[in-house]
């Protein structure tokens, strides 16, 4: 609970937590909160010339190029962002932990193979790889999730590996071995609990990385495919009109930034509180 108390004492981190939580609530309760359906095209949603409407009383954030309510689309877009943030980040965390843990604890052949593999993964230009795969396989939500998970696994594996190797050298692990504890017991009862703080920190910061990644892929048109709303693809659709209809770019753009920022604020505070290598330095 000391972590919670530490968070409460940091007003900036608490603001981040509240905002991030608000995004989650909005995403879950989207059908209840959204004033209209995200797909409905309104006859009065466009001007007589067929241009989108700026924010007004009926459409709070204005309408898009097809006369759909921007606010409703953005509320459903929060779902897309958070689903990707949750799953892509979850898969990367799980796979990265498995690789890092195995490589850090086992010696010899398996370790060198796994670590050379992560070396290789780290040398890949992540964004270019992700864009290419997403473009060639086709814009689908699952693909976006897998691709983002793939490029985020390497860094997690690296960190877990470094932590595990230093833990494996410690006396209490040697003592466990001496009393005859098996590998599985040492790994899951002794090493993994010590990794928990660093996993919480990386898990939190990873949400913002994956959310930004999804936004970039969708913005380039290789992520989530319209009419399924995503903050990135709303900007993609609206950007050629951004001089006359800036709300189509700025509202969804700021939504991405706000979500990523609030998650980062929480993750940063957690890192200060939990990361043993930083303790007492800030």
């Amino acid at each position, binding site marked *: 609970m000391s972590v919670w108390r530490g968070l409460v004492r940091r007003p*900036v981190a608490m603001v981040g937590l509240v905002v991030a939580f608000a995004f989650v609530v909005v995403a879950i309760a989207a059908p209840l909160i959204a004033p209209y359906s995200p797909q409905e095209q309104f006859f009065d949603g466009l001007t007589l010339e067929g241009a989108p409407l700026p924010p007004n009383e009926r459409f709070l954030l204005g309408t898009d190029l097809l006369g759909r309510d921007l606010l409703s689309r953005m509320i459903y877009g929060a779902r897309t962002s958070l689903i990707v943030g949750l799953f892509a980040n979850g898969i990367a965390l799980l796979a990265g932990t498995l690789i890092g843990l195995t490589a850090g604890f086992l010696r010899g052949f398996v370790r060198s193979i796994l670590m*050379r593999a992560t*070396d*290789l993964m*780290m*040398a*890949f*230009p*992540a*964004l*270019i*790889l992700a*864009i*290419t*795969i997403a*473009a*060639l*396989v*086709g814009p689908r939500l699952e693909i976006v999730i897998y691709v983002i998970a793939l490029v985020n696994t390497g860094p997690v594996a690296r960190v877990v590996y470094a932590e595990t190797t230093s833990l494996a050298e410690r006396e209490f692990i040697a003592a466990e071995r001496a009393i005859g504890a098996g590998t599985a017991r040492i790994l899951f009862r002794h090493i993994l609990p010590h990794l928990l703080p660093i996993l919480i920190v990386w898990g939190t910061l990873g949400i*913002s990385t994956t959310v*930004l990644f999804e*936004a*970039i892929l969708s*913005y*380039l048109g*290789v992520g989530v495919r319209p009419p399924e709303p995503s903050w*990135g693809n709303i*900007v993609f659709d609206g*950007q050629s009109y*951004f*001089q006359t209809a*800036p709300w189509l*770019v*700025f509202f969804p*753009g*700021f939504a*991405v*930034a706000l979500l*990523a*920022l609030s998650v*980062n*604020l929480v993750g*940063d505070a957690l890192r200060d509180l939990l990361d043993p290598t930083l303790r007492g*330095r*800030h």
Partner: protein
Amino acid sequence: MPAYLARRLVQAALILLGVAAITYLLLYMLPADPARMVAGRSAGKEQVEMVRMQLGLDRPIWEQFGSYMWKLLQGDLGRSYLQRVQVTELLGARLPASLLLMVGAIFCELVIGVTLGMIAGLRRGTAVDQTLMVVALVFISTPQFVIALSLLYVFAYWLGWFSIGGYGEFQHLVLPSLTLGLLGGGWYARVTRSSVIEVLRQDFIRTARAKGLDRWRIVLVHILPNAVLPIIAMVGIDIGYFMGSIVVVESVFGWPGIGQLTWQAIQQIDIPIIMGVTLLSACAIVLGNLLADLVAPLIDPRIKLR
């Protein structure tokens, strides 16, 4: 040192070969047909097969792979499917624009990051420090395309100081560099702040203060050079990250560099170009990391190259 360097270079070469092999096999396993793309949407079945033969895509995948890797070892990246030009030539033609952008971006990153980080670190714990760190986090959390479009809207459209997109004059360089510079500047600000705090705790700073040295002299002569060293190592790692960012930034600003070439190639399934860019980026990442490792002992003499 020479032995270390030699070993690292051999390692780097092996990693690059690995990247080449994996990317190649990955690209050909994906369900996309370059032959259909080259032949065009209206082409009949026979035409598509003809193109497939011309491009050598009808051969077994292992034969294609073998000949690609063999040519790669000789420095030949093959020919673009659509533009029918050597990939090395295309990359060479686009490289200067991207390098120019990179120089601009690194300049902005350093100026923004070091300034914010120095101020925050020197005023550690104050409201100024907290505000600046949140600002840095805002830069880090905002997707490049949002920064790019915001800068375009404010400075190009609204204020009219710069033209929207374009290449060739100094004014065209400002906004794309700033876009990349704000993002990187956020990271640099955080690192600079930590390292300023670290330097401030050292004995030589206390000595300098005790000697009664001028405050500015301490900041500029004693703190800045020591605090900035970790940043130099970071620039090395940054070069690799940069290669990804330019795909987005160059496409927003219409900057005729590698990023734009990549984006076009991806849309046209022009695999030789995608391969070439991936390898070029991997090269940048590997060499950047090597550079960072080589600089590390200069920063902290306790670190030994092994």
